[in-house]
């Protein structure tokens, strides 16, 4: 394989190179110092670019907006109002003369669009549309934390073990059983919270884990770090998480072992395995 272009290097770092290409590129990188340097540069560029974009964060609104001459609802009510609005819109669009059966679309799961476990169940401005909705909304403002805990216990893995597809964060809405044609019963619905795959046996000390894979074993590392060992189709993968301050020089590794190291949240993370670099990059996308 001749020297890769930037697009291929970035695709490799994103874990998006098809396996054959990744293997070829991996072989080239073993032999080409210059391209290894370019790969490091690509990684650094990716990291910095991500950090820059992340500065445009989206904080949930709590206080009413003072702009535009109206009191804006906070984010949760916004979601609710929007959903209520959609109920009305769909009802208007799809409602037939017969009033007994509500349109199918009202089997909506309208919940808070942003569920924060720590959010106080503060009384918010009532939603725009229906009084009945407002009443139910207040009923729905039950203790959020209790429900969230129940939710996490029920969470199921969203990616099959061993599957290495590069996927977006596992955000799956909870789907309570379909409602009768009465419309939305808001007080029954738990507040929305992104459902994240429940880790199988991740030690409490591990800040990160690989999504979709089960930990085979774990051991503490000097300096307060931890090593999680996974198995990917029979090949062991070590995932080290060490406080950045304590991170010393990397241990000696065999010629057949590849390593990927990067900083995150004050830790130094390392993936180490006989798998190809491209595979490691894919796994890196699954760090949660």
């Amino acid at each position, binding site marked *: 394989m001749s020297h890769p*272009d*930037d*697009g*291929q*290097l*970035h*695709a490799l770092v*994103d874990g*998006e*190179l098809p396996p054959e290409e990744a293997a070829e590129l991996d072989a080239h990188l073993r032999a080409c110092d210059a391209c290894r340097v370019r790969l490091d540069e*690509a990684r650094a*560029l*990716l990291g*910095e*670019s*991500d950090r*820059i*974009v*992340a*500065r*445009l964060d*989206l*904080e949930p*609104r*709590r*206080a*009413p*907006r*003072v*702009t*535009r001459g109206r009191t804006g609802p906070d984010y949760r009510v*916004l*979601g609710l109002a*929007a*959903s209520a*609005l*959609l109920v009305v*819109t*769909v009802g208007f*669009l799809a409602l037939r003369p017969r009033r007994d059966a509500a349109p*199918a*679309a009202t*089997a*909506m*799961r*309208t*919940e808070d*669009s*942003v569920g924060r476990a720590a959010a106080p169940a503060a009384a918010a401005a009532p939603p725009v549309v229906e009084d009945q909705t407002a009443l139910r909304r207040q009923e729905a403002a039950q203790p959020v934390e209790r429900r969230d805990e129940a939710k996490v216990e029920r969470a199921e893995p969203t990616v099959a073990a061993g599957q290495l597809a*590069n*996927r*977006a*964060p596992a*955000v*799956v*809405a909870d*789907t309570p059983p379909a409602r009768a044609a009465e419309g939305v019963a808001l007080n029954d619905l738990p507040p*929305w919270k992104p459902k994240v795959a429940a880790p199988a046996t991740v030690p409490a000390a591990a800040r990160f884990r690989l999504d979709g894979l089960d930990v085979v074993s774990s051991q503490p590392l000097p300096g307060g770090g931890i090593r999680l060992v996974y198995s990917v189709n029979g090949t062991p993968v070590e995932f080290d998480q060490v406080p950045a301050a304590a991170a010393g020089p990397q241990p000696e590794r065999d010629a057949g072992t590849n390593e990927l190291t990067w900083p995150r949240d004050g830790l130094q993370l390392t993936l180490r395995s006989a798998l190809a670099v491209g595979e490691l990059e894919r796994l890196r996308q699954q760090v949660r």
Partner: protein
Amino acid sequence: MTDIGTLFQQYHESLVRMLYRRTGDRDRAEDLAQETFARAVEAPPNNPRPWLFAVALNLVREDGRRASTRGRRLELYRHEGPQASPAPDQEFVREEDRARVRRALERLNERDREALLLKAEGFNYDEIAETLGLARGAIGTTLARARKKLVEAYREEERTDVAS
């Protein structure tokens, strides 16, 4: 057919965030997101995420008003009450930085910028290609170019701010 409520829960926040980064205007982002979902009600999509984000990005393009010309918004209303509000000068610095990021993003090509923002929302290459109508093989190059340009532009903006 996925119902609209589920779609909303799954994608609304992500869509608003992407639109906010795309337009630089929080209020406008939320309005555009609402309009996007309203369209999904009328024509429920089979492949929701690329569809939603493609519609939203089209709305941004059609909508002639560019938020970047509106100037910086001092988002005073983000004080949170019981917790200590950040000191006004801290908030100002953060807002300055956000404006800097927005200016840097504005210097990218539209397609490059959109690809970058979709990636930031967790889209994989196939999904980015589908949403933007690009060939999958072009995504790596697009992102490489976008990232490089963003970092360069951001650093230049930093230098300009320091010098002024």
